[in-house]
């Protein structure tokens, strides 16, 4: 699960991490009040940031022509104009796709004068199965590019989960970033707090980009998280009711939400061949084999190991609500699962939905003879595939004909 920047900053703040002063606002009134409060407390510059789960906000464009999902304001009037042009409007960035996302919330925050930018992240190092802190002096830029071109500029600190992060590790990073004096000590506290946030919230990734040394109104330097992104481990959400409450369904695809109600794992893609498969690995390979034979998959859909008739029926409705779909490929290897149960589910779903698109079914495994007989006796036009490859060729041919 992903959360918004303002929510990530709330979690960080709860763990003693410095973030710029600011408030999330859902209405123009809230935004005006928040902006006024910041100007009144001595900030000469504030930032209005669209809150959507996609990157590239600053360079994005709203569908009504307004440019920039992140804007700096010097006056209250400017701030209000920007808020007006963001709230309730649709922002298109390089990550949202052409349909964009509606901005429901904006973050109105102090825009501190940035002296230097850094990068800081906590993630899982799969090679060691331990948490890894990554930091770099190259902040505010694409970290993947830094890792590619100048890997020596990335500092890494692996944390032993038995004891957690030790202050010396945070000091080593702070030193590696070239920090001195008060900012050094503040950075150590901040790094400890970011790690604690990551571990205690069961985050799969915390990314602070940029982490920045800023010059505050009083002329003193301090270090804080100017931007923050947190992704959570879905498996651990059951023990974080407070974080689960941060879920923003408006940011998720309606079809994917519908699928999750039936414990189906569905991801919408752009192709024309819908797939319904049991098992994640087989579902991925089904997409791959469609592409291998010249087609394009419309979705990833794993109905799981013990799919019921209801799930198969729900799965059909979900894949059919994608208007791009021109044919359906059902690929089931029923190891333990009864192929006849699946076959009955298919027949019922086809009748219920009045399916007219070509349907190619490859059934294999437990009770497969009965399953195939059920399909044959249904009187429906179902094309049968003997192997995955045979079925994939047939479904691609059906779309191309």
């Amino acid at each position, binding site marked *: 699960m992903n959360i918004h920047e303002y929510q990530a900053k709330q979690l960080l703040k709860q763990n003693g991490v410095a973030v710029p002063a600011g408030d999330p606002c859902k209405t123009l009134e809230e935004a005006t009040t928040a902006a006024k409060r910041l100007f009144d407390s001595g900030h000469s510059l504030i930032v209005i940031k669209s809150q959507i789960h996609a990157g590239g906000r600053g360079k994005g464009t709203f569908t009504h022509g307004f440019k920039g999902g992140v804007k700096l304001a010097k006056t209250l009037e400017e701030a209000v104009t920007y808020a007006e042009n963001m709230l309730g409007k649709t922002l298109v960035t390089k990550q949202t796709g052409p349909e964009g996302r509606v901005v429901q919330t904006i973050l109105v925050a102090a825009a501190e004068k940035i002296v230097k930018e850094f990068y800081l992240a906590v993630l899982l190092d799969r090679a060691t199965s331990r948490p890894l802190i990554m930091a770099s002096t190259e902040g505010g830029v694409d970290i993947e590019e830094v890792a590619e071109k100048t890997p020596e500029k990335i500092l890494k600190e692996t944390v032993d989960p038995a004891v957690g992060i030790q202050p010396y590790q945070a000091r080593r990073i702070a030193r590696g970033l070239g920090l001195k004096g008060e900012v050094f000590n503040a950075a150590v506290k901040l790094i400890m707090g970011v790690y604690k946030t990551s571990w205690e919230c069961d985050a799969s990734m915390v990314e602070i980009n940029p982490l920045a040394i800023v010059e505050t109104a009083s002329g003193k330097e301090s270090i804080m998280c100017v931007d923050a992104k947190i992704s959570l481990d879905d498996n651990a959400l059951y023990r974080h009711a407070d974080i689960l409450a941060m879920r923003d369904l408006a940011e998720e695809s309606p079809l994917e939400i519908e699928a999750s109600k039936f414990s189906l794992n569905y991801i919408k893609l752009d192709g024309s061949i819908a797939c319904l498969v*049991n098992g994640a690995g087989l579902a*991925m*390979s089904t*997409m791959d084999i469609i592409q291998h034979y010249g087609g394009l998959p419309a979705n*990833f859909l794993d109905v799981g190991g013990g799919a019921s008739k209801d799930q198969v029926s729900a799965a059909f409705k979900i894949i059919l609500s994608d208007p791009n779909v021109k044919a359906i490929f059902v690929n089931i*290897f029923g190891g333990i699962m009864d192929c006849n149960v699946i076959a009955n589910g298919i027949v019922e779903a086809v009748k219920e939905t009045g399916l007219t698109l070509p349907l190619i079914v490859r059934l294999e495994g*437990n009770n497969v003879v009965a399953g195939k007989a059920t399909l044959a006796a249904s009187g429906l036009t179902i094309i049968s595939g003997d192997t*995955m490859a045979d079925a*994939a060729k047939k479904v691609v041919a059906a779309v191309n004909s």
Partner: protein
Amino acid sequence: MSIFVTPQTKILIQGITGSFGARHTPLSIEYGTQVVAGVTPGKGGQIFEHKGVRVPIFDTVEEAVKATGATTSAVFVPPPFAADAILEGVDAGLDLVVTITEGIPVNDMVRVKRAMSGLRTRLIGPNCPGIVTPGEGKDSHGGCRIGIAPGYIHKKGNIGVVSRSGTLTYEAVFQLTCRGVGQSTCVGIGGDPVNGTSHLDVIKLFMADPETHGIIMIGEIGGAAEEEAAEWIALHGTKPVAGFIAGATAPPGRRMGHAGAIVSGGKGTAQAKFDAFRAAGIGVAATPSEMADTLLRLMK
């Protein structure tokens, strides 16, 4: 020899009375697997009975091991309690803990793996179908089935199969069996980002196992475990290996069903893994339909 287990291995089932454990334990018993004990806290003293086989249930793994001599466990307990169940098996000194449970928090597994380091117990999984060492009987009965794989698709023979995915393992096994080619052991290492046993761990054992003559290695996007195994094979491999990677068409940044199946930061792509396979001389199956044929061509 097979790897990890033999038909004589004594198995205990953690979570034997839960719906998942109770559904799969009878299938293992019917397969001929030596299921000698079950563990469900609070149900100690009860019996799990299936077709005349009476499996005693214990409150703790320690008791179950002491009373029955079980050396291996299958963990079916729900995700919030799975880490504890695994560590209980480790504490009882089991040789092998096979964790089927899907959905264990990653940080729990990070802790479990740290706690297990240096200890003798091997963990397989989590989020895996388990292990099958096929037997001599009809539909490979008389073998050792730990987990949820369909036993009947197997056949006793000389191919080792290792995979991160359940149904894709079955697909490969079924392709082999349909061609009259049997398997020594089939191991599902699981689809989570933190697992107990890696592709490389299993590959090394297959290479050392005289009964294994060829290997099918099935991976998927995410991480670099397949690349690690391929590098080792390039240097030390002595047997033909064929492989497939699922997820070439997966969009970056999305988790494809399995918690570990994600391309992030440009890392863990199918392309990188296929390249590593080719560089190591591993036969690459062009489609998942050709896993068995690709290996059999190499073995001619």
